């Protein structure tokens, strides 16, 4: 099909959830009032195998790094998802998370958006961030992903 217009989408409607159940029987609890999510450090890693017979630098792909999610959200102490994040940080527990993107109608999706399920540690939790009189109290947390993602394309 020839190009007519962009099929990109915004993040509005994204759900970022934490599993408060078990791996086999998950209970997905939405982490409420997230204003921003930023993934960084998801990359392939390489070893340098350059040798005397190389004509140029040579690298060997080793194992990938799944990266780190940095979440910013309005602090609401009674939000069950945010409370679960605190619990995961306190116990340094490997916890399952799920990101469900909005349904991309322009791309032909109609029932479910793309999902990413992964395990992560709550590496950093600044739950009482900056306190300013004219600004909402904002929490910031870093999820260090461990292992591979399970990606499911929406439909």
């Amino acid at each position: 099909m020839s190009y007519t217009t962009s099929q990109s989408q915004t993040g509005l409607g994204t759900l970022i959830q934490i599993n408060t159940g078990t791996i086999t029987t998950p209970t997905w609890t939405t982490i409420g009032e997230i204003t921003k999510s930023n993934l960084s450090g998801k990359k392939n890693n390489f070893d340098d195998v350059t040798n005397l017979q190389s004509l140029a630098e040579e690298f060997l792909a080793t194992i990938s790094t799944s990266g780190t999610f940095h979440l910013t959200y309005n602090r609401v102490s009674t939000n069950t998802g945010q409370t679960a994040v605190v619990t995961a940080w306190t116990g340094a527990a490997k916890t399952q998370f799920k990101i469900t993107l909005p349904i991309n109608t322009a791309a032909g999706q109609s029932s479910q958006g793309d999902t990413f399920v992964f395990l992560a540690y709550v590496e950093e939790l600044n739950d009482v961030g900056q306190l300013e009189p004219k600004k909402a109290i904002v929490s910031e947390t870093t999820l260090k992903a461990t292992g591979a993602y399970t990606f499911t394309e929406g439909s």
Partner: protein
Amino acid sequence: MIEQGLVKLIQTGLTDAFSQAVPGGYATELPKDLIGVQGSQVFKAWLYRSMDRPGNYVLQGIEGLTNWTVQIDCYGYNPSDAIDLGYAIDAIVNGFSGTLTDSDSTVVEGIFRQGSLIDSFSDVNRAYVRSLEFLVQYYQI
């Protein structure tokens, strides 16, 4: 509605401050010939005009905490009338936090005076004007 709540807040406070009702809470324009026309006993009046109210969004949708910038114009027959009214309104709203008495019982996180303070004269209303600007943070239902 926040507009209704703000007007009620100011009007109640002005009645206490000046021991009489002060005409006000008009949106954008005063009624014609309200101030200082021969025989009129109205020397002070105020209106509000909405300046800015951007939507705040979280990933799940629109966020309830809303920032509303509102300009309040304080009119006076004499310069001192406009200035007195300005100080009185500032004393009522600046730093306010609580629940308003509008039909929605709007919860206000805080009202903050912004930097703008402009004195002028209104030819249309034949009155002196002190314009104040406030940031109202409230929960939009």
